[in-house]
């Protein structure tokens, strides 16, 4: 069995890539996908620790996170669709009317 730290390191890398995606990409859908990637990184850490501590709670949490992610995607994509209807664009940089 590999040390759990390997998985944590992988999880950190994947999370950082997701975060970079949020910061770099302008496409709202890709930003969304990056968020999903970050969630997955967190899930991986959960499962790794569940294995390490031999506790099923970690896996159950992953289950919950999946559900929340599903809900989030449903609402988020609905929002994107709604925004697209009015702006005909999903570039987040175009949606900057709340500036100071």
């Amino acid at each position: 069995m590999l040390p759990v730290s390997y998985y944590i390191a992988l999880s950190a890398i994947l999370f950082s890539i997701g975060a970079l995606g949020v910061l770099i990409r302008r496409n709202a859908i890709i930003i969304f996908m990056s968020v999903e990637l970050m969630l997955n990184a967190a899930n991986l850490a959960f499962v790794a620790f569940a294995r390490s501590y031999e506790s099923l709670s970690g896996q159950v949490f992953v289950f919950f996170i999946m559900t929340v992610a599903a809900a989030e995607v449903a609402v988020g994509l609905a929002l994107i669709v709604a925004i697209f209807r009015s702006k005909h664009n999903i570039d987040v940089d175009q949606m900057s009317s709340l500036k100071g």
Partner: protein
Amino acid sequence: MLLSEIATSGPSFFYLAPWLVFFPVIGLLINIIFGGRFGEKLIGSVAATASGLTFVVAVLLAISLRAHPEGTSILLAEWISIGELHLDWAFRVDTLSVTMMMVVGGVGTLIHIYAIGYMHEDVRFKNDPGRYRRFFVFFNLFIAAMMILVSGDNYLMLFVGWEGVGLCSYLLIGFWYDKDLLGRPSHENATAGKKAFITNRVGDFGFLIAGFIMFWAFKSVQFDQVFEHAHHVAEHNPGIILAITLFMLLGVAGKSAQIPLFVWLPDAMAGPTPVSALIHAATMVTAGVYLVARSAPLYSLVPQAQNTVALVGGITALFAATIAVGQYDIKKVLAYSTISQLGFMVAAVGMGAFVAGMFHLITHAFFKALLFLSAGSVILGVERGHHHAAHGHHDHDNHGHDEHHEEEVFDPGDMRNMGGMRKTMPVTFWLYMIGTIALAGIPPFAGFFSKDEILAEANTLNFPVYILLAIAAFFTAFYMGRQIWMVFFGKARHEAAEHAEESPLIMTVPLMILAALSILGGALNFPGVSTLTHWIEHTYETFHLHLHHGEFNPTVAITSTVLGLLAIFLSWLLYGRKPIAEGQVDPLKKMFGPIFVGMENKWWVDELYWAVILNPYIALARFLADTIDWKFWHDWFHNSVIARGFKVIARTLAEPIDLGFIDAIANGLAEGTQMISGSLRRLQTGFVRNYALSVFIGVVVILGYLILK
């Protein structure tokens, strides 16, 4: 139970004393609240009943006093309690106060009844029947105030009554405040009321000072306590008693119309005649006499004060009597006569003849009320005749009612318009005759006994005053004779007098009662029997004050009677033998020229007061108002000093301090905030990725900090 039984078995009705005040107050409240729905008769009845009940109470108190002559004090409530001053609202019932109560209640009730008839006509001649109720409200208020005055157990309560009657006097003198004596629109009556009130203020000032000194010296203004310590104070510091009594004399001079404050009383005749009779002849004006009689224990300690009082009374008696000779208005003659008679009383109580003064007070109340009310009856009779004559002309000329308002100015009180009224008003004539003889001091009428007692006392106690009073008595008989001849004898000098009509019974019956009292009043203190002396002595005995017992002096009595008869004869020679005709100059004027002009013009006392006091006072007031207050204080001080100074201060505060400093702080804060927010708002790019970056920076930095910690 019969009254005599009560008197002997000695039950006490003292507890009824507060009702002396309650009854008239209830009466006036009834008239104020419900009077609007009452008829005139009911209003008058309520008021007269209230007044009558006080007389009943006074009689019951007198009966109680026969069994307990030392009197008592009925506590109603604790009144004032400040520091050393403890005053109760207590009613003093002793022979002196009860005597006053009976006079006030008795004469007051008769005049109330008379007023029911008099005011009924008066309000119609003056075209304002709505004031009928007001008159009786004031009248009851007067009775209440007068009862407080005479029943007070301390000087302050007496002062409350003193001011109360002053107020009623003011209200009733100015009863027709929007008219003058002849019923024309004018401020004349209101001015007369004001004059009475202000003149009395001068006297009240003296009374107040006396009260303050009294409290300072005795630590009390309660009668018993003051009189008890009077001896003690007089031994150590007689000046204090002298000051108190002399300042009190000023109050007496104001209320009882003595020199130098008598000028208000003739003007007070502006009030309706019952007012003149009740307030300005029978009761209120005698309050000064009562005050001196009440303060006898103080006055008897300082002979200087007694002499001063006696002299003031004597001079006033003579002075006013001479003025009365030169007057033409029937009520003015009686007014000066009242001043003169008050002078007799004041002289009497000043000499120490307290009982003689009180005796004259009582008889004077009878016959002067009688004379005034009869004069009122005469005036109304002439008014009736005048209206009758006026309407008669209308019928004759077919002019209709418009003419009514264009009547010539006619003074129903001017004796020069009268004459021959013996035939048109026979009842009034006889009543007037009785009053005149009583006042002139012809035996056996009441005036003879009381005046003679004063003269007899003066003869022994203070001879100069006796001379003054004797001459005054001569003049009294003369001007009353003159009045009788002018009013009732000869021929009518005006058609109004010719058509005069007799007054109704409601007016004449009270007059008959008063006439009976004027005839029989002398019996109260018949020489040798001296009922009143023994009665009032009870009061003074409590203060160990022994009265001088005046002896009946036949010389004095005969002298005064002869003088009186002589005066009447002289007046007959001048006015009766050959009645003056219409428009004729007064015969005395031909004989004495300038002296009579002086009498006619009241010795120019009013003019003197105007010149010496009022005009300088008005000038001073105007100077203070115009120059000091308006020009100096308002124009210069306010506008130049205060307003300008304020502007300077305000400008200093406004420009450098407010604008320069305080505003700078506020503006600086605002500008700073604006500047900071201006730079900070750039952080709000609106780009969601920027915000995410901020969060990410935060995460990295905080995590780094935790690791490196």
